[in-house]
């Protein structure tokens, strides 16, 4: 079972690698930083990739917007969502 810290670390790593965030390293991503818009600067097209990445690397499905909206706010919220689903 992954701990919350493990999940966050892995999340940052796959974000940078899979979304090709070239000017960023995992260490530069703040846990509370907004993923979309201001903050990390991801957009709706990255959201598509992110949903698939979460499923591929963590085996967790973000089924709809009800689940996705609160989960995709920051690394913290996404890690908490994954941890909850993996229980």
């Amino acid at each position, binding site marked *: 079972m992954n701990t919350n810290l493990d999940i966050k670390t892995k999340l940052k790593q796959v974000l940078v690698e899979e979304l090709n965030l070239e000017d960023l390293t995992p260490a530069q991503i703040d846990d509370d930083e907004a993923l979309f818009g201001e903050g990390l600067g991801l957009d*709706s097209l*990255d959201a598509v990739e992110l949903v698939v990445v979460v499923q591929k690397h963590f085996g967790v499905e973000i089924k709809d917007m009800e689940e996705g909206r609160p989960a995709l706010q920051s690394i913290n919220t996404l890690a908490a969502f994954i941890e909850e689903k993996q229980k």
Partner: protein
Amino acid sequence: MGKNWQHQFFYLAIRFGGRRLAYFFLYFVVGYYVLFSRNARRRAAPYLRRRFPNAHGLERLYHCYRLILNFGRVLVDRAVIGIMGPQAFKVTLHGRDRLLSLRDEGKGLLMIGAHVGCWQVAMSALDFMQRPVNMLMRREDGDIDRHYYEHAGIECPYQVIDPTEYLGGTLQMLGALKQGEVVCVMGDRTLGSERSSVEVEFMGGTVELPYSAYKIASTTGTPIVVFFSRKDSSDSYSLHLAEVIRIPEIKGREAQSFIPYVQKFSTALEQYCQQLPYQFFNFFPMWRE
């Protein structure tokens, strides 16, 4: 186009005299618009300049008249379906078996259409898919003409996904595709941010077309179907499967990788315009002038 009372006038004409009476009034109303509304001519001009490059003066005006007359007929037809029921028109589907086989792949189906023919009528022909149909669409402020289901006072037959919603509606689109549903989008108009569009060639110029649907298809493995509707006669429409586009997994944020696929759509649309020059109703500025 048109003011609210003018739309109401045509709805009344349909109720009391049927489609033909409404068509009859259209000749005069469209004539008035083409002669006296600079705005109507201005909005049709970019397309007509490219489709009929050698036409000037009166000849250009004639093409403008035919284009707007056909657009008016489509608006009338849309209202006719709502007021008199779908049986008022015969809708033929070309490519039914192919669509069913793509549906059975189980990855959902992305249908990319354009502002041609009457896509709302075409949507009414998708029942055979036996899957919920979702439509990515945005109603503009001041958009006064009604959809056919609004005339009929029935529930919208498709689920509307609003591109101005959170993350441009992409999460809803993904969710629908995961359930094996059909998602329809308009491929000839950009609705979201600039990053979600790419430049392709269309009718001798450069246009920006959206590629979000192509990105989703690449990520999910969903097949894309390019489909166009056309008005075949006064009381019949057909829906044509123009192209099937399969996109491999493309990683990263580089939009350029999607250009060849968006270009396929653009090429199919151009072929449509060559064949049916008066059924292209995208009056939004497309080309970089």
